[in-house]
């Protein structure tokens, strides 16, 4: 891919990233951080690609280690985030949620 296309993707993604989280209430800081943390676990895709390319034992060994680490990051990250958010779910079911959303939104 040519450099301009990559730079465009990069710059636009930066702005999207800034925009989507700019109004988050402090209550959600930890789950949001944890969720974003899980998302960068997609380096797993990269790790699989290099494992496919690997020819020497050294390369394969390093790629396998990368796959293990990336999987832990991705899968563990989404599971632990879900557990955190599960705690909030009980409240959502009790119907108090609308008011709570509003106050959270107005905080920042």
């Amino acid at each position: 891919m040519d450099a301009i296309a990559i730079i465009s993707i990069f710059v636009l993604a930066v702005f999207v990233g800034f925009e989507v989280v700019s109004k988050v209430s402090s209550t959600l800081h930890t789950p949001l951080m944890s969720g974003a943390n899980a998302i960068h676990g997609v380096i797993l895709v990269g790790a699989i690609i290099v494992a496919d390319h690997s020819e020497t034992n050294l390369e394969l060994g390093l790629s396998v280690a990368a796959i293990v680490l990336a999987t832990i990051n991705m899968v563990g990250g989404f599971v632990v985030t879900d557990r955190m958010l599960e705690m909030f779910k009980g409240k959502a079911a009790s119907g108090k949620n609308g008011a709570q959303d509003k106050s959270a939104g107005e905080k920042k």
Partner: protein
Amino acid sequence: MNRTIYDLIGLSAGVMFILALKGLSHPRTARRGNLLGALGATVATVAVFFYAGKEGALPLNNLGWILGAIAFGVFVGVPAARRVQMTAMPQLVALFNGVGGGAAALVAIVEYLKLGDTATTAEVIATVFTVLVGCTSFSGSIITFLKLQELMTTRPVVFPGGRFVIAATLGGTLASAVWVVNSLGTTPLLVLAGLSLLFGVLFVLPVGGADVPIVISLLNAFTGLTVAAGGYVLDATLLIIAGTLVGASGTILTRLMAEAMGRSLFGTLFGAFTAKPQDAAGATETRPVKSGTPDDVAILLNYARRVVIVPGFGLAVAQAQHTVRELADLLTAKGIDIAYGIHPVAGRMPGHMNVLLAEANVPYEQLSEMEEVNPTFPQTDVALIIGANDVVNPAAKTTPGCPIYGMPILDVAQAGNVIFLKRSMRPGFAGIENELLFDSKTTLLFGDAKASLTKVVGALKAL
């Protein structure tokens, strides 16, 4: 599958990640957002098995190794995420972030070994960036883990001449980065990786316990950028999108967190360069404190009209969420007005305490954020502080230069009476003495938060 279809699947995964972050920013959609993110990651991972690259063939080479490694990662990651106590969750997030950074660095190293002399300068620069930042994030996250797990001191670790050592390491790291770009070899790359690991350790060591969450968030953003750079080397658009999203949102999140804690980001990050060695622990306190019995506490609570409960990490450690709710129910039944004053960083991370109390089914409407509850302290008869210290420490207002100076606190000193349930006179996570403990309107009840609360509940019932 051809490249166009593969890229379109990658794009849809990227869109899912954007929607995931968007969903995670609102309480009602947060869980769905996270699941959407997981779906995006799964789709992206499955797709790569059906696209072998420009000249490759399916199935992928080393398929057994790949599937085995994924299975092993799931086998380690899922139980860790499932079984972790909610109190220990921040350090687990730090650890997950660290291994992600490590994975990115390894990917870049393998690709570099592979490309050898055919790498373009831009690819080498992206590789160098990935290795440098990935390794820093890895070792830095391990140190934050050790600090949060209290396997090492939570105080800032500052040694004489420390700032010169850090500056020299950073200089060496950057020099070896230039070396890699110029002379293209495995040795310079390994030197770079080693120095980056060292720099990560030195970078986090001087950070005080209270600032650790900010550093975790920052390292998270770093890892995101690392993944983006790795995506450039591998010509994988999805990695560029996902990594950049996390890098950008992580940066904003780091700033928001620093603001919520009233800390300057600059001060936190470059504390390493300005911190001075502190006196260890200081002189033993010999001033008198007013220590009470559970009955004294019960009486104070029984005749109050309004009680604000300030929960802290001590409550979480003692697993006293349920007992504190029992106490609150008892007081509510007596017609006493109850609120929980939640400091934004009560616990170990922003929002941590809300999660813990939600686990104990504390009604959401009783949880008040700091800005709501602070103006009500003058009308409050009793502030009941359970296992919290730094978030109510007036030193944040009165002592310029102390590690938490400038952090907004809960103004419990404005309340008629202050009750501390504490294990001991040991200072809080930030390691600073709390003047409020010696105030004449303060009563201390020593012991494990759960045991103390159970006794207070018993005494209250007997009244």
